[in-house]
Protein backbone atom coordinates (compact mmCIF):
# COMPACT_ATOMS: atom_id res chain seq x y z
CA UNK A 1 0.00 0.00 0.00
CA UNK A 2 2.99 2.19 0.70
CA UNK A 3 3.70 1.88 -2.99
CA UNK A 4 0.26 2.36 -4.46
CA UNK A 5 -0.02 6.10 -4.02
CA UNK A 6 3.40 7.09 -5.41
CA UNK A 7 3.07 4.70 -8.32
CA UNK A 8 -0.39 5.99 -9.14
CA UNK A 9 0.76 9.59 -8.90
CA UNK A 10 3.68 9.04 -11.24
CA UNK A 11 1.48 7.00 -13.53
CA UNK A 12 -1.08 9.80 -13.75
CA UNK A 13 1.65 12.29 -14.52
CA UNK A 14 3.02 10.08 -17.27
CA UNK A 15 -0.38 9.46 -18.83
CA UNK A 16 -1.15 13.14 -18.77
CA UNK A 17 2.16 13.93 -20.44
CA UNK A 18 1.51 11.18 -22.92
CA UNK A 19 -1.85 12.62 -23.92
CA UNK A 20 -0.30 16.02 -24.42
CA UNK A 21 2.45 14.48 -26.53
CA UNK A 22 -0.08 12.47 -28.51
CA UNK A 23 -2.02 15.61 -29.34
CA UNK A 24 1.12 17.47 -30.30
CA UNK A 25 2.57 14.69 -32.43
CA UNK A 26 -0.63 13.65 -34.14
CA UNK A 27 -1.90 17.15 -34.84
CA UNK A 28 0.13 17.81 -38.03
CA UNK A 29 -1.40 14.76 -39.69
CA UNK A 30 -4.88 15.73 -38.61
CA UNK A 31 -4.35 19.26 -39.96
CA UNK A 32 -2.93 17.86 -43.18
CA UNK A 33 -5.94 15.65 -43.61
CA UNK A 34 -8.22 18.57 -43.00
CA UNK A 35 -6.27 20.71 -45.42
CA UNK A 36 -6.49 18.00 -48.08
CA UNK A 37 -10.19 17.86 -47.49
CA UNK A 38 -10.25 21.63 -47.80
CA UNK A 39 -11.56 22.28 -44.29
CA UNK A 40 -9.96 23.60 -41.14
CA UNK A 41 -10.37 22.22 -37.64
CA UNK A 42 -11.48 23.89 -34.45
CA UNK A 43 -9.40 23.13 -31.37
CA UNK A 44 -11.77 20.54 -29.82
CA UNK A 45 -12.22 18.85 -33.18
CA UNK A 46 -8.46 18.76 -33.64
CA UNK A 47 -7.95 17.15 -30.26
CA UNK A 48 -10.64 14.62 -30.99
CA UNK A 49 -9.02 13.88 -34.32
CA UNK A 50 -5.68 13.18 -32.66
CA UNK A 51 -7.19 10.60 -30.33
CA UNK A 52 -8.75 8.33 -32.88
CA UNK A 53 -6.31 7.99 -35.76
CA UNK A 54 -5.74 4.55 -37.13
CA UNK A 55 -2.03 5.09 -37.74
CA UNK A 56 -1.07 7.76 -35.21
CA UNK A 57 2.51 8.88 -34.79
CA UNK A 58 1.97 8.34 -31.10
CA UNK A 59 -1.15 6.42 -30.17
CA UNK A 60 -3.08 7.78 -27.20
CA UNK A 61 -2.90 5.70 -23.99
CA UNK A 62 -6.45 4.47 -24.30
CA UNK A 63 -5.77 3.24 -27.82
CA UNK A 64 -2.78 1.23 -26.62
CA UNK A 65 -4.73 -0.02 -23.64
CA UNK A 66 -7.46 -1.19 -25.98
CA UNK A 67 -4.86 -2.84 -28.21
CA UNK A 68 -3.38 -4.70 -25.25
CA UNK A 69 -6.81 -5.61 -23.96
CA UNK A 70 -7.88 -6.97 -27.32
CA UNK A 71 -4.68 -8.93 -27.57
CA UNK A 72 -4.90 -10.36 -24.09
CA UNK A 73 -8.54 -10.77 -23.29
CA UNK A 74 -10.18 -10.50 -26.68
CA UNK A 75 -8.74 -13.75 -27.98
CA UNK A 76 -8.46 -17.35 -26.96
CA UNK A 77 -5.05 -17.82 -25.41
CA UNK A 78 -4.15 -20.37 -28.04
CA UNK A 79 -5.12 -18.02 -30.86
CA UNK A 80 -2.39 -16.59 -33.05
CA UNK A 81 -3.84 -13.18 -32.43
CA UNK A 82 -3.46 -13.50 -28.69
CA UNK A 83 -0.68 -11.49 -27.13
CA UNK A 84 -0.52 -14.04 -24.34
CA UNK A 85 0.33 -16.76 -26.80
CA UNK A 86 3.04 -14.66 -28.42
CA UNK A 87 4.40 -13.63 -25.05
CA UNK A 88 4.55 -17.29 -24.07
CA UNK A 89 6.62 -18.10 -27.14
CA UNK A 90 8.99 -15.26 -26.36
CA UNK A 91 9.16 -16.07 -22.68
CA UNK A 92 10.26 -19.66 -23.18
CA UNK A 93 13.16 -18.64 -25.40
CA UNK A 94 14.03 -15.77 -23.07
CA UNK A 95 14.19 -18.01 -20.03
CA UNK A 96 16.25 -20.63 -21.83
CA UNK A 97 18.65 -17.98 -23.11
CA UNK A 98 18.85 -16.25 -19.77
CA UNK A 99 19.64 -19.52 -18.03
CA UNK A 100 22.35 -20.42 -20.52
CA UNK A 101 23.73 -16.87 -20.61
CA UNK A 102 23.90 -16.21 -16.91
CA UNK A 103 25.36 -19.64 -16.25
CA UNK A 104 28.02 -19.00 -18.88
CA UNK A 105 28.68 -15.55 -17.43
CA UNK A 106 29.07 -16.91 -13.92
CA UNK A 107 31.32 -19.76 -15.02
CA UNK A 108 33.52 -17.44 -17.07
CA UNK A 109 33.74 -14.99 -14.17
CA UNK A 110 34.76 -17.80 -11.85
CA UNK A 111 37.42 -18.83 -14.33
CA UNK A 112 38.66 -15.27 -14.74
CA UNK A 113 38.95 -14.67 -11.03
CA UNK A 114 40.84 -17.90 -10.45
CA UNK A 115 42.99 -18.26 -13.53
CA UNK A 116 45.41 -15.66 -14.73
CA UNK A 117 45.40 -17.10 -18.22
CA UNK A 118 41.67 -16.63 -18.42
CA UNK A 119 41.82 -13.20 -16.82
CA UNK A 120 44.29 -12.06 -19.42
CA UNK A 121 42.80 -13.75 -22.44
CA UNK A 122 39.04 -14.00 -22.04
CA UNK A 123 38.02 -10.52 -20.96
CA UNK A 124 39.14 -8.55 -24.04
CA UNK A 125 37.49 -11.08 -26.30
CA UNK A 126 34.33 -11.24 -24.27
CA UNK A 127 34.10 -7.48 -24.75
CA UNK A 128 34.78 -7.81 -28.46
CA UNK A 129 32.08 -10.46 -28.72
CA UNK A 130 29.52 -8.01 -27.40
CA UNK A 131 30.32 -5.42 -30.00
CA UNK A 132 29.32 -7.78 -32.78
CA UNK A 133 25.98 -6.33 -33.79
CA UNK A 134 23.65 -9.24 -33.14
CA UNK A 135 20.94 -8.13 -35.50
CA UNK A 136 23.59 -8.43 -38.20
CA UNK A 137 24.62 -11.92 -37.34
CA UNK A 138 21.28 -13.11 -36.02
CA UNK A 139 20.18 -14.20 -39.52
CA UNK A 140 23.49 -15.98 -39.93
CA UNK A 141 23.07 -17.69 -36.58
CA UNK A 142 19.60 -18.76 -37.62
CA UNK A 143 20.90 -19.93 -40.99
CA UNK A 144 23.78 -21.86 -39.45
CA UNK A 145 21.52 -23.52 -36.92
CA UNK A 146 18.93 -24.25 -39.57
CA UNK A 147 21.55 -25.91 -41.75
CA UNK A 148 22.37 -28.11 -38.78
CA UNK A 149 18.69 -28.93 -38.54
CA UNK A 150 18.08 -26.90 -35.39
CA UNK A 151 15.17 -24.50 -35.59
CA UNK A 152 12.61 -22.98 -33.28
CA UNK A 153 13.52 -22.10 -29.74
CA UNK A 154 17.23 -22.91 -29.61
CA UNK A 155 18.64 -20.36 -32.09
CA UNK A 156 16.66 -17.57 -30.45
CA UNK A 157 17.79 -18.72 -27.04
CA UNK A 158 21.40 -18.67 -28.21
CA UNK A 159 21.08 -15.05 -29.28
CA UNK A 160 19.46 -14.22 -25.96
CA UNK A 161 22.27 -15.99 -24.13
CA UNK A 162 24.84 -14.12 -26.19
CA UNK A 163 23.45 -10.81 -25.00
CA UNK A 164 22.82 -11.77 -21.39
CA UNK A 165 26.10 -13.42 -20.48
CA UNK A 166 28.08 -10.20 -20.61
CA UNK A 167 26.43 -8.14 -17.85
CA UNK A 168 26.63 -11.18 -15.62
CA UNK A 169 30.28 -11.67 -16.48
CA UNK A 170 31.26 -8.08 -15.71
CA UNK A 171 29.21 -7.90 -12.53
CA UNK A 172 30.42 -11.23 -11.24
CA UNK A 173 34.08 -10.50 -11.88
CA UNK A 174 33.67 -7.32 -9.88
CA UNK A 175 31.65 -9.03 -7.17
CA UNK A 176 33.98 -11.98 -6.78
CA UNK A 177 36.83 -9.54 -6.31
CA UNK A 178 35.03 -7.51 -3.67
CA UNK A 179 36.22 -9.34 -0.51
CA UNK A 180 38.74 -7.11 1.20
CA UNK A 181 42.21 -8.02 2.19
CA UNK A 182 41.46 -9.10 5.73
CA UNK A 183 38.67 -11.41 4.66
CA UNK A 184 40.89 -13.07 2.08
CA UNK A 185 43.72 -13.27 4.60
CA UNK A 186 41.52 -15.09 7.07
CA UNK A 187 40.74 -17.70 4.45
CA UNK A 188 44.40 -17.83 3.65
CA UNK A 189 45.42 -18.37 7.25
CA UNK A 190 43.04 -21.35 7.43
CA UNK A 191 44.53 -22.66 4.23
CA UNK A 192 41.08 -22.75 2.68
CA UNK A 193 41.13 -24.30 -0.77
CA UNK A 194 40.12 -22.08 -3.68
CA UNK A 195 36.80 -23.85 -3.83
CA UNK A 196 36.19 -23.20 -0.15
CA UNK A 197 37.17 -19.57 -0.40
CA UNK A 198 34.86 -19.32 -3.39
CA UNK A 199 31.78 -20.84 -1.84
CA UNK A 200 32.19 -19.31 1.56
CA UNK A 201 33.62 -15.89 0.85
CA UNK A 202 33.73 -14.79 -2.77
CA UNK A 203 30.27 -15.94 -3.75
CA UNK A 204 28.43 -14.48 -0.75
CA UNK A 205 30.18 -11.14 -1.16
CA UNK A 206 29.36 -11.14 -4.86
CA UNK A 207 25.63 -11.59 -4.28
CA UNK A 208 24.61 -7.91 -4.44
CA UNK A 209 26.56 -7.49 -7.67
CA UNK A 210 25.17 -10.71 -9.06
CA UNK A 211 21.59 -9.65 -8.58
CA UNK A 212 22.13 -6.20 -10.06
CA UNK A 213 23.62 -7.88 -13.11
CA UNK A 214 20.95 -10.53 -13.36
CA UNK A 215 18.30 -7.85 -13.59
CA UNK A 216 20.10 -6.28 -16.49
CA UNK A 217 20.77 -9.67 -18.05
CA UNK A 218 17.17 -10.80 -18.04
CA UNK A 219 16.13 -7.64 -19.84
CA UNK A 220 18.97 -8.20 -22.29
CA UNK A 221 17.86 -11.78 -22.85
CA UNK A 222 14.41 -10.55 -23.73
CA UNK A 223 15.85 -8.10 -26.22
CA UNK A 224 17.99 -10.89 -27.67
CA UNK A 225 15.00 -13.15 -28.11
CA UNK A 226 13.00 -10.46 -29.79
CA UNK A 227 15.89 -9.68 -32.09
CA UNK A 228 16.15 -13.38 -32.84
CA UNK A 229 12.47 -13.44 -33.68
CA UNK A 230 12.75 -10.70 -36.26
CA UNK A 231 14.69 -12.61 -38.88
CA UNK A 232 13.56 -16.02 -37.76
CA UNK A 233 10.96 -15.81 -40.43
CA UNK A 234 8.56 -13.68 -38.41
CA UNK A 235 6.46 -16.60 -37.33
CA UNK A 236 5.58 -16.24 -33.69
CA UNK A 237 6.54 -14.32 -30.60
CA UNK A 238 6.42 -10.68 -29.58
CA UNK A 239 9.28 -9.85 -31.95
CA UNK A 240 7.35 -11.19 -34.92
CA UNK A 241 4.37 -9.26 -33.69
CA UNK A 242 6.40 -6.06 -33.48
CA UNK A 243 7.82 -6.62 -36.93
CA UNK A 244 4.55 -7.32 -38.63
CA UNK A 245 2.99 -4.37 -36.88
CA UNK A 246 5.86 -2.27 -38.05
CA UNK A 247 5.68 -3.69 -41.56
CA UNK A 248 2.03 -2.87 -41.93
CA UNK A 249 2.37 0.45 -40.18
CA UNK A 250 -0.03 -0.58 -37.44
CA UNK A 251 1.28 1.72 -34.76
CA UNK A 252 -1.19 0.56 -32.18
CA UNK A 253 -0.24 -3.07 -32.68
CA UNK A 254 3.44 -2.14 -32.27
CA UNK A 255 2.76 -0.34 -29.03
CA UNK A 256 0.62 -3.15 -27.72
CA UNK A 257 3.36 -5.66 -28.45
CA UNK A 258 5.90 -3.27 -26.99
CA UNK A 259 3.95 -2.98 -23.77
CA UNK A 260 3.49 -6.70 -23.59
CA UNK A 261 7.26 -7.09 -23.94
CA UNK A 262 7.97 -4.41 -21.37
CA UNK A 263 5.47 -5.95 -18.98
CA UNK A 264 7.17 -9.28 -19.47
CA UNK A 265 10.55 -7.72 -18.74
CA UNK A 266 9.16 -5.91 -15.71
CA UNK A 267 7.71 -9.13 -14.35
CA UNK A 268 11.01 -10.93 -14.88
CA UNK A 269 12.94 -8.14 -13.18
CA UNK A 270 10.45 -8.13 -10.33
CA UNK A 271 10.81 -11.87 -9.86
CA UNK A 272 14.57 -11.48 -9.62
CA UNK A 273 14.17 -8.57 -7.21
CA UNK A 274 11.99 -10.78 -5.09
CA UNK A 275 14.55 -13.56 -5.06
CA UNK A 276 17.20 -10.97 -4.29
CA UNK A 277 15.32 -9.63 -1.33
CA UNK A 278 14.71 -13.06 0.13
CA UNK A 279 18.29 -14.18 -0.45
CA UNK A 280 19.94 -11.08 0.95
CA UNK A 281 17.64 -11.16 3.91
CA UNK A 282 18.46 -14.76 4.66
CA UNK A 283 22.12 -13.91 4.27
CA UNK A 284 21.70 -11.13 6.80
CA UNK A 285 22.88 -8.55 4.27
CA UNK A 286 19.65 -6.63 4.03
CA UNK A 287 19.11 -4.61 7.14
Amino acid sequence: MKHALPVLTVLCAIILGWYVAAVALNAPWARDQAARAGTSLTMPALIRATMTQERPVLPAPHQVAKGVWDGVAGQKITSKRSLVWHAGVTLSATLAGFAIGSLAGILLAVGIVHSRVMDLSVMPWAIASQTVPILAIAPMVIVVFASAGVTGLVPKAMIAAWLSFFPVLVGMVKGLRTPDRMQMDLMHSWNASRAQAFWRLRLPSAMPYLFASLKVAVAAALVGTIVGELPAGATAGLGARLLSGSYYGQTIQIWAALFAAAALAAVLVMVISGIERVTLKRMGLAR
Partner: protein
Amino acid sequence: MTAALPLIAVWLGAFGLNTWLARYRGPIPSALVPLIFGATILILWEMACRSFAIPAVILPAPSQIWTAFGANLPLLWGDFVQTILKGALSGWLIGAAAAVATAIAIDRSPFLQRGLLPIGNFVAALPIVGIAPILVMWFGFDWQSKAAVVVVMVFFPILVNMVAGLKATDALARDQIATWGASYTQALLKLRLPAAMPFLFNGLKITTTLALIGAIVAEFFGSPTRGMGFRISTAVGQLNMPLVWAEILVAALAGTAFYGIVALIERRVTFWHPSQRQ
Protein backbone atom coordinates in the same frame (compact mmCIF):
# COMPACT_ATOMS: atom_id res chain seq x y z
CA MET B 1 36.56 -36.07 -37.81
CA THR B 2 40.15 -36.39 -38.97
CA ALA B 3 39.89 -32.87 -40.36
CA ALA B 4 39.33 -31.64 -36.83
CA LEU B 5 42.53 -33.14 -35.45
CA PRO B 6 44.93 -30.36 -36.55
CA LEU B 7 42.50 -27.85 -35.10
CA ILE B 8 42.55 -29.56 -31.74
CA ALA B 9 46.34 -29.75 -31.87
CA VAL B 10 46.65 -26.00 -32.51
CA TRP B 11 44.23 -25.29 -29.68
CA LEU B 12 46.11 -27.42 -27.18
CA GLY B 13 49.46 -25.97 -28.23
CA ALA B 14 48.32 -22.38 -27.81
CA PHE B 15 46.66 -23.19 -24.51
CA GLY B 16 49.85 -24.71 -23.19
CA LEU B 17 51.89 -21.73 -24.33
CA ASN B 18 49.51 -19.33 -22.61
CA THR B 19 49.45 -21.25 -19.37
CA TRP B 20 53.22 -21.12 -19.34
CA LEU B 21 53.30 -17.42 -20.20
CA ALA B 22 50.73 -16.50 -17.58
CA ARG B 23 53.08 -17.55 -14.82
CA TYR B 24 55.20 -14.51 -15.53
CA ARG B 25 54.14 -11.11 -14.29
CA GLY B 26 54.70 -7.85 -16.07
CA PRO B 27 53.32 -5.95 -19.01
CA ILE B 28 54.69 -8.18 -21.76
CA PRO B 29 52.94 -11.44 -20.80
CA SER B 30 49.77 -9.51 -19.97
CA ALA B 31 49.73 -8.22 -23.52
CA LEU B 32 50.93 -11.43 -25.14
CA VAL B 33 48.41 -13.80 -23.57
CA PRO B 34 45.27 -12.19 -25.00
CA LEU B 35 47.00 -11.72 -28.32
CA ILE B 36 47.94 -15.38 -28.51
CA PHE B 37 44.44 -16.31 -27.47
CA GLY B 38 42.98 -14.15 -30.23
CA ALA B 39 45.49 -15.33 -32.80
CA THR B 40 44.61 -18.91 -31.94
CA ILE B 41 40.94 -18.27 -32.54
CA LEU B 42 41.71 -16.64 -35.88
CA ILE B 43 43.99 -19.49 -36.96
CA LEU B 44 41.39 -22.05 -35.95
CA TRP B 45 38.76 -20.11 -37.84
CA GLU B 46 40.91 -19.90 -40.97
CA MET B 47 41.76 -23.59 -40.75
CA ALA B 48 38.14 -24.53 -40.22
CA CYS B 49 37.05 -22.48 -43.23
CA ARG B 50 39.62 -24.16 -45.40
CA SER B 51 39.47 -27.74 -44.23
CA PHE B 52 35.69 -27.89 -44.10
CA ALA B 53 35.33 -25.76 -47.28
CA ILE B 54 32.78 -23.47 -45.63
CA PRO B 55 31.30 -21.26 -48.36
CA ALA B 56 32.25 -17.60 -48.05
CA VAL B 57 28.60 -16.57 -48.21
CA ILE B 58 28.07 -18.35 -44.89
CA LEU B 59 31.31 -17.56 -43.10
CA PRO B 60 34.29 -15.90 -44.78
CA ALA B 61 37.81 -16.74 -43.63
CA PRO B 62 39.78 -14.16 -41.60
CA SER B 63 42.14 -13.64 -44.52
CA GLN B 64 39.25 -12.61 -46.75
CA ILE B 65 37.91 -10.32 -44.06
CA TRP B 66 41.28 -8.70 -43.65
CA THR B 67 41.55 -8.12 -47.42
CA ALA B 68 38.09 -6.54 -47.45
CA PHE B 69 39.07 -4.42 -44.47
CA GLY B 70 42.17 -3.11 -46.20
CA ALA B 71 40.35 -2.45 -49.47
CA ASN B 72 37.51 -0.45 -47.91
CA LEU B 73 39.25 1.78 -45.39
CA PRO B 74 37.67 5.13 -46.40
CA LEU B 75 34.22 3.55 -46.53
CA LEU B 76 34.70 1.95 -43.13
CA TRP B 77 35.96 5.21 -41.65
CA GLY B 78 32.90 7.08 -42.88
CA ASP B 79 30.64 4.44 -41.37
CA PHE B 80 32.59 4.58 -38.13
CA VAL B 81 32.14 8.33 -37.83
CA GLN B 82 28.44 8.14 -38.62
CA THR B 83 27.53 5.26 -36.32
CA ILE B 84 30.04 5.19 -33.49
CA LEU B 85 31.10 8.78 -33.04
CA LYS B 86 27.82 10.48 -33.87
CA GLY B 87 25.29 7.83 -32.90
CA ALA B 88 26.70 5.66 -30.14
CA LEU B 89 28.98 8.06 -28.30
CA SER B 90 26.62 11.01 -28.05
CA GLY B 91 23.76 8.72 -27.10
CA TRP B 92 25.83 7.00 -24.45
CA LEU B 93 26.89 10.29 -22.90
CA ILE B 94 23.36 11.65 -22.80
CA GLY B 95 21.93 8.36 -21.54
CA ALA B 96 24.53 8.00 -18.81
CA ALA B 97 24.04 11.57 -17.66
CA ALA B 98 20.27 11.12 -17.62
CA ALA B 99 20.51 7.85 -15.70
CA VAL B 100 22.83 9.29 -13.07
CA ALA B 101 20.65 12.36 -12.71
CA THR B 102 17.53 10.22 -12.40
CA ALA B 103 19.15 7.95 -9.87
CA ILE B 104 20.08 10.96 -7.77
CA ALA B 105 16.68 12.55 -8.20
CA ILE B 106 14.73 9.50 -7.13
CA ASP B 107 17.24 8.76 -4.40
CA ARG B 108 16.41 12.01 -2.73
CA SER B 109 12.68 11.48 -2.65
CA PRO B 110 11.44 8.18 -1.29
CA PHE B 111 8.10 9.05 -2.81
CA LEU B 112 9.53 9.32 -6.30
CA GLN B 113 11.65 6.25 -5.68
CA ARG B 114 8.67 4.16 -4.81
CA GLY B 115 6.66 5.63 -7.64
CA LEU B 116 9.21 5.92 -10.39
CA LEU B 117 11.39 2.84 -10.00
CA PRO B 118 8.74 0.23 -10.83
CA ILE B 119 7.45 2.32 -13.71
CA GLY B 120 11.00 3.20 -14.71
CA ASN B 121 11.82 -0.49 -14.81
CA PHE B 122 8.82 -1.02 -16.99
CA VAL B 123 9.42 1.83 -19.40
CA ALA B 124 13.13 1.15 -19.68
CA ALA B 125 12.51 -2.49 -20.41
CA LEU B 126 10.82 -1.63 -23.69
CA PRO B 127 12.86 -3.64 -26.18
CA ILE B 128 14.97 -1.51 -28.50
CA VAL B 129 13.89 -3.34 -31.61
CA GLY B 130 10.41 -2.13 -30.88
CA ILE B 131 11.46 1.37 -30.01
CA ALA B 132 13.88 1.86 -32.88
CA PRO B 133 11.26 2.20 -35.63
CA ILE B 134 9.29 4.61 -33.48
CA LEU B 135 12.32 6.71 -32.68
CA VAL B 136 13.33 6.73 -36.32
CA MET B 137 9.86 8.02 -37.07
CA TRP B 138 10.22 10.76 -34.44
CA PHE B 139 13.82 11.80 -34.81
CA GLY B 140 14.38 11.25 -38.49
CA PHE B 141 16.73 9.07 -40.44
CA ASP B 142 20.05 10.52 -39.45
CA TRP B 143 22.21 9.85 -36.41
CA GLN B 144 19.91 11.69 -33.99
CA SER B 145 17.46 8.81 -33.94
CA LYS B 146 20.33 6.35 -33.41
CA ALA B 147 21.53 8.38 -30.47
CA ALA B 148 17.99 8.35 -29.10
CA VAL B 149 17.89 4.57 -29.33
CA VAL B 150 21.21 4.38 -27.50
CA VAL B 151 19.92 6.69 -24.79
CA VAL B 152 16.95 4.44 -24.16
CA MET B 153 19.12 1.35 -24.23
CA VAL B 154 21.84 2.39 -21.81
CA PHE B 155 19.56 4.18 -19.40
CA PHE B 156 18.22 1.20 -17.48
CA PRO B 157 21.46 -0.65 -16.75
CA ILE B 158 23.18 2.51 -15.56
CA LEU B 159 20.18 3.51 -13.47
CA VAL B 160 19.98 0.13 -11.75
CA ASN B 161 23.65 0.17 -10.93
CA MET B 162 23.64 3.77 -9.79
CA VAL B 163 20.67 3.27 -7.49
CA ALA B 164 22.38 0.23 -6.00
CA GLY B 165 25.59 2.24 -5.67
CA LEU B 166 23.91 5.10 -3.86
CA LYS B 167 22.64 2.60 -1.32
CA ALA B 168 26.06 0.97 -0.93
CA THR B 169 27.62 3.19 1.72
CA ASP B 170 28.24 1.42 5.00
CA ALA B 171 26.46 2.38 8.16
CA LEU B 172 29.55 3.77 9.89
CA ALA B 173 30.38 6.12 7.05
CA ARG B 174 26.80 7.35 6.96
CA ASP B 175 26.76 7.92 10.72
CA GLN B 176 29.96 9.85 10.53
CA ILE B 177 28.78 12.30 7.97
CA ALA B 178 25.55 12.67 9.93
CA THR B 179 27.46 13.79 13.01
CA TRP B 180 29.05 16.55 10.99
CA GLY B 181 25.61 17.84 10.19
CA ALA B 182 26.28 17.51 6.48
CA SER B 183 23.51 18.69 4.21
CA TYR B 184 21.98 16.26 1.75
CA THR B 185 24.08 17.63 -1.09
CA GLN B 186 27.25 17.42 0.92
CA ALA B 187 26.63 13.85 1.96
CA LEU B 188 25.90 13.06 -1.66
CA LEU B 189 28.99 14.71 -3.04
CA LYS B 190 31.46 13.70 -0.40
CA LEU B 191 30.30 10.26 0.57
CA ARG B 192 27.62 8.61 -1.50
CA LEU B 193 28.83 9.51 -4.98
CA PRO B 194 32.38 8.29 -4.35
CA ALA B 195 31.05 5.14 -2.74
CA ALA B 196 28.73 4.59 -5.71
CA MET B 197 31.53 4.83 -8.26
CA PRO B 198 32.40 1.11 -8.41
CA PHE B 199 28.77 0.37 -9.13
CA LEU B 200 28.40 3.19 -11.61
CA PHE B 201 31.40 2.03 -13.57
CA ASN B 202 30.02 -1.44 -13.60
CA GLY B 203 26.99 -0.03 -15.41
CA LEU B 204 29.07 2.21 -17.65
CA LYS B 205 31.23 -0.69 -18.79
CA ILE B 206 28.30 -2.95 -19.56
CA THR B 207 26.65 -0.23 -21.59
CA THR B 208 29.63 0.62 -23.79
CA THR B 209 28.91 -2.44 -25.86
CA LEU B 210 25.15 -1.96 -25.62
CA ALA B 211 25.59 1.51 -27.07
CA LEU B 212 27.36 0.15 -30.12
CA ILE B 213 24.76 -2.53 -30.66
CA GLY B 214 21.96 -0.01 -30.29
CA ALA B 215 23.43 2.43 -32.77
CA ILE B 216 24.10 -0.27 -35.35
CA VAL B 217 20.80 -2.05 -34.95
CA ALA B 218 18.82 1.17 -35.17
CA GLU B 219 20.15 1.69 -38.68
CA PHE B 220 18.29 -1.40 -39.81
CA PHE B 221 15.09 0.55 -39.35
CA GLY B 222 15.96 3.39 -41.67
CA SER B 223 19.12 5.36 -42.25
CA PRO B 224 20.98 7.54 -44.69
CA THR B 225 23.17 5.61 -47.10
CA ARG B 226 26.09 5.37 -44.72
CA GLY B 227 26.68 3.85 -41.33
CA MET B 228 27.74 0.46 -40.12
CA GLY B 229 24.27 -1.01 -39.78
CA PHE B 230 23.32 0.24 -43.22
CA ARG B 231 26.48 -1.23 -44.73
CA ILE B 232 25.96 -4.55 -43.04
CA SER B 233 22.38 -4.94 -44.22
CA THR B 234 23.15 -3.94 -47.79
CA ALA B 235 26.27 -6.08 -47.90
CA VAL B 236 24.30 -9.06 -46.66
CA GLY B 237 21.89 -8.46 -49.50
CA GLN B 238 24.83 -8.48 -51.92
CA LEU B 239 26.27 -11.57 -50.20
CA ASN B 240 29.41 -9.53 -49.67
CA MET B 241 30.17 -11.33 -46.43
CA PRO B 242 33.80 -10.22 -46.16
CA LEU B 243 32.62 -6.60 -46.05
CA VAL B 244 29.98 -7.52 -43.44
CA TRP B 245 32.67 -9.02 -41.27
CA ALA B 246 35.01 -6.12 -41.90
CA GLU B 247 32.30 -3.90 -40.41
CA ILE B 248 31.94 -6.29 -37.52
CA LEU B 249 35.70 -6.07 -37.07
CA VAL B 250 35.47 -2.29 -36.90
CA ALA B 251 32.68 -2.61 -34.35
CA ALA B 252 34.75 -5.03 -32.29
CA LEU B 253 37.83 -2.81 -32.37
CA ALA B 254 35.84 0.30 -31.52
CA GLY B 255 33.93 -1.50 -28.79
CA THR B 256 37.05 -2.90 -27.19
CA ALA B 257 38.73 0.48 -27.27
CA PHE B 258 35.62 2.15 -25.84
CA TYR B 259 35.43 -0.40 -23.05
CA GLY B 260 39.15 -0.13 -22.42
CA ILE B 261 38.98 3.63 -22.03
CA VAL B 262 36.10 3.39 -19.58
CA ALA B 263 37.95 0.68 -17.65
CA LEU B 264 41.02 2.90 -17.54
CA ILE B 265 39.02 5.80 -16.14
CA GLU B 266 37.49 3.41 -13.64
CA ARG B 267 40.95 2.42 -12.51
CA ARG B 268 41.81 6.01 -11.82
CA VAL B 269 38.55 6.90 -10.13
CA THR B 270 38.07 3.80 -7.98
CA PHE B 271 41.71 3.04 -7.23
CA TRP B 272 40.76 2.57 -3.60
CA HIS B 273 38.33 -0.27 -4.16
CA PRO B 274 39.63 -3.72 -3.14
CA SER B 275 38.96 -5.09 -6.62
CA GLN B 276 41.40 -2.54 -8.06
CA ARG B 277 44.00 -2.95 -5.36
CA GLN B 278 45.07 -6.54 -5.80
